[in-house]
């Protein structure tokens, strides 16, 4: 990232992201360019080596307790690592091993991770939330489901919302994330996931066995719905390794009215 854009990120991270993300205890300190951000680390984050989704969860679970700051996270990651010269990726790998050996671990959604890994993920999230220039992995060829066979998995009765507007959330939840819902006529208890633009969404089965909701985080919205597009939405059966196209989510430019359909089109903005 160029110096100027980094500064822009740090400045925006200081205010907007903190408020939007709703992490009340979370402070982003930007000391007017005084923050020294390791360029190798920056490159690793910018290349998408660490997971913003994981980082978001780390912060949700742990930031309120630890009161971590951007500076603090960066300092934690770099603590004990050489600032220059060494291959930072290798050094981080060794630090992660030491974390495990010395009991510096954290648990995220059941995963037992090293503290350094969690910090890296959190930094990745903040980077992304702050508008960092991270290349989103494109849907398509590198999507984890691109090679899966298309097979009918469950009979879809209805789903929604089916359109959104560039730069805006849809069916916005108190967390600020957007939510999709899907009503199936019948489903068994296989682990299902909703994929949006070839990327997995946080998926839950609610209110009985045949209603599924899936969350599109603000970061994912920004990555996947940054321009007018028709985004494929899939149901994936991870055990059988198959996918079913459920429809396309329309991302419209501001001011473009969606075409209203009949009942079978679902209520494009509501919940079931």
């Amino acid at each position, binding site marked *: 990232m160029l110096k100027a854009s980094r500064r822009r990120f740090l400045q925006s991270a200081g205010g907007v992201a903190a408020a939007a993300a709703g992490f009340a205890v979370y402070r982003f300190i930007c000391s007017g360019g005084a923050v020294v951000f390791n360029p190798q680390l920056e490159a690793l984050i910018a290349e998408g*080596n*660490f997971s*913003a989704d994981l980082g978001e969860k780390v912060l949700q679970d742990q930031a309120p307790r630890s009161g971590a700051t951007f500076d603090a996270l960066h300092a934690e990651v770099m603590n004990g690592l050489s600032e220059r010269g060494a291959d930072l990726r290798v050094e981080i790998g060794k630090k992660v091993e030491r974390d495990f*050996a010395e009991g510096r671990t954290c648990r995220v*959604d059941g995963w*037992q991770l090293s503290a350094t890994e969690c910090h890296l993920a959190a930094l990745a999230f903040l980077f992304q939330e702050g508008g960092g220039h991270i290349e989103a992995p494109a849907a398509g060829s590198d999507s*984890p489901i691109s090679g899966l066979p298309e097979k009918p998995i469950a009979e879809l009765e209805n789903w929604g919302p089916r359109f959104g507007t560039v730069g805006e959330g849809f069916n916005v939840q108190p967390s600020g994330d957007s939510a999709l819902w899907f009503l199936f006529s019948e489903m068994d208890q296989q682990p299902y996931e909703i994929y949006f633009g070839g990327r997995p969404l946080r998926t839950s089965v609610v209110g009985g066995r045949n209603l599924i909701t899936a969350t599109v985080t603000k970061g994912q919205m920004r990555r996947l719905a940054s321009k007018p597009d028709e985004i494929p939405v899939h149901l994936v059966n*991870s055990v059988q390794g198959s996918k079913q196209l459920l429809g396309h989510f329309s991302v419209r430019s501001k001011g473009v009215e969606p075409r209203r359909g009949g009942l079978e089109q679902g209520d494009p903005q509501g919940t079931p």
Partner: protein
Amino acid sequence: MILSNVGPNWPRLSYDVAIYGGGPAGISLALALSGAGLRIGLFEAGGLDPQTVGPDHPYRGENLGRPYDLASTRLRYLGGTSNHWGGWCRPLDALDFSIRPHIPLSGWPLGREALNPYLEAALEVCEVPSGGLGLAAFEHDFGYQGFIHHAHPALQVKNFLFSPPTRFGMRYRQDLEDAKDIECFLDATLVRLTTTEGAVDQASLMSSDGVRLQVSADFHVLAMGAVENARTLLHSEIANSSDFVGRCFSDHLGRTVGKALLRFENRYFQHAVRNGDRQVRALPHLSLTKQTLQEFELPNLGIVMPRISSMSLNVYGQGVKRQLDSLLQSNTQYCWVTARIENTPNPDSRITLTNESDGYGVPRVALNWRVNAFDVESLRRLCAVLGPLVGQAGGRMNIDYQVAEGAHPPGSHQAHQMGTTRMSAEADSGVVNADLRCHDLANLYVAGSSVFPTFGFANPTLTIVALSLRLAEHLRRLAGVADA
């Protein structure tokens, strides 16, 4: 010779050795005794074919504790439960025979080395290919160089090998037919034993159509499985001065404790391996060294890791994989983590008799299966130990939250009934001695996993057969025909 039913012509029979139960324990004992000039009677309650497990089936009983399917986990015909066993074989480890301070009632009155020659022979009886390595195959590194257990000194591998599986009734039926010194009766249910002067003087048996038979013998051996062995002793009101008959009932615990991402070659599942030009089926289990198990006060255990598609990872799991792949510059594989964990003896986990009798007039059993708090707790501790170890070695574990919190009881049973007539050095802490003779009686022996005082995590049948082979040698020695 096999005699398909107990005719009224044989109201009284007399043998040198009378064995009750024609499963792996009874059949391997009878055949190992054969050829030494002894007269052997083998009495099997069932026939040559499976019985329907109707409401009157003698194996039906009550559950007072954890649910346990008493009827479908045992088979009542020649060959016994080996008619549907899976053939998984592994001897207990030396550790399982030792006294461990953190496991009350642990330790056998004999060591693993005393069993080794019989285990070698049991491999043959159970037709387990070992690639020419014999017992050493269970610890052999079958080309596991890239496996995670090489990446950390606290980890090690423990192999299972496989019987075809040998269906003892079918496989050894001809041998029983051919043996001149064995009379094998079908449809001959042992009902009760009576004693005089500290020895069994008579066994009462009955056929399904009510024909009764009395058997006397120099040595009587119960080989009817852990539930029926205890049931018969309780019903006969013998061999129980220690009050341990029926107690310490146990079955192996196994459950999926989580998932893992591994950069390592992962073949911790059943697959073909080679020793030279010999092919063997093996199932390597990831385990912890003896020192690590003792340091963390863990019971013995082994872990299998069947691969699954990374597609099964949710959004966070995919994030963990992305980070790990990037840090290790490799493509990690996703798998389940299923632990097979030794369970510890619990005297309150027990078989007692109910007031209801089966068609032979034998009271049905009530099973109160209990699991020690230590066993549940050890799952939690295992998760806590394993996560960082795997992490240090370059993998990641996702631990089942409820298991990790100890809130979840261990998983369901594996149909390995054990412990109800435990072996002990002292008469007050068990039912049989190291020679498998009842402490209280001069001529009554018990074969099968009911004698296991501690259970390890390995399936029991190989050890059951080894104990029977050892018992055969002991009885031959007592009968003065050891050299025959």
